[in-house]
């Protein structure tokens, strides 16, 4: 019951967000889109910097720009989809769930995100 409610709220929020990011371009100067908190406070990019612009570009089919804004987002989206499906279909496909939740898989994701976070500030991507 509580799970269903969370899923409904999350889906509604996702639909609203998709509509906003489709019609408004966060890369335009003077928009009211919040800049990254981490970047504003520390001056360093976070792992998610550029996600808003990347989502806008993706919704308009511009994969090249999306890659340029935040390449990690393009990797993260299929991952999130895979984990979401694995959780949803856990009863039907228990082996798939176990396979992608192995400790070494999760540790790889963790290392990947930390490497991306640090690396993009060094080479400025």
């Amino acid at each position, binding site marked *: 019951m509580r799970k269903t409610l969370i899923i409904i709220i999350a889906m509604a929020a996702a639909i609203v967000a998709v509509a906003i990011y489709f019609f408004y371009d966060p890369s335009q100067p003077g928009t*009211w889109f*919040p*800049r*990254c*908190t*981490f*970047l*504003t*406070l520390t001056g360093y990019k*976070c*792992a*998610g*910097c550029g*996600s808003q612009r990347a989502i806008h570009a993706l919704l308009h089919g511009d994969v090249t720009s999306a890659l340029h804004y*935040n390449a*990690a*987002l393009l990797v*993260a989206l299929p*991952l*999130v989809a895979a*984990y*979401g499906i694995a*959780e949803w279909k*856990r009863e039907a496909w*228990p082996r798939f769930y*176990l396979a992608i*939740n*192995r*400790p070494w898989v*999760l*540790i790889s*994701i*963790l290392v990947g*995100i*930390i490497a991306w*976070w640090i690396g993009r500030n060094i080479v400025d991507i």
Partner: protein
Amino acid sequence: MNENIQYWINQDGVQAGPVTREQLKDMAVTDAAYVWRAGMEDWCRITEMPELAGLYSTAPADEAQQPQAEAPAQAQTDDEVVTGTPVIPPIPQQPAARVQPQMQPQPQMAAQQVTEQPKCPPTNLVWAILSTILCCLPLGVVAIVYSTKVTQKYQQGDLAAAEHYSEVSAWWCIGSIIGGIVLSPFVSLIQMAMMQ
């Protein structure tokens, strides 16, 4: 050795569990028993679990054979045919071979037999990744760290710790999402102030 690990015991076709190592010591478990704990693919013989060494009795050969020989026959009476040869005293390998199909069921079968056999608690990785990529805060990374601990502990058989870390990672996700939403208006204000 972690004392929180819970084991399921199957001896002579009778299943018991969950039990801890301490409780296992008080049970009259012989080396003919099968064991399963969270993180194991399938049941295995108690003798193949180094962590349980010394917690079962090693029955003398002739005594051990008798209950073993009777157990499968008894269990199979409601099945269609008794496939074994109960008249001939079984050689030591034989009971194990006959018991195995019964003792090592498919995963679904195992779940039916022991309804309380626990699943790995959620790793919350969907929310952990999303909150890292979208909330601009390092809190999501902490959530992923705890997500990795969930499956690690589950594979070690420590369910209590796995559930604990699952909850901790969920709270870090929630903290990251709320923090991201609450902080962004303030950040916008700082931005505007800096522009002027």
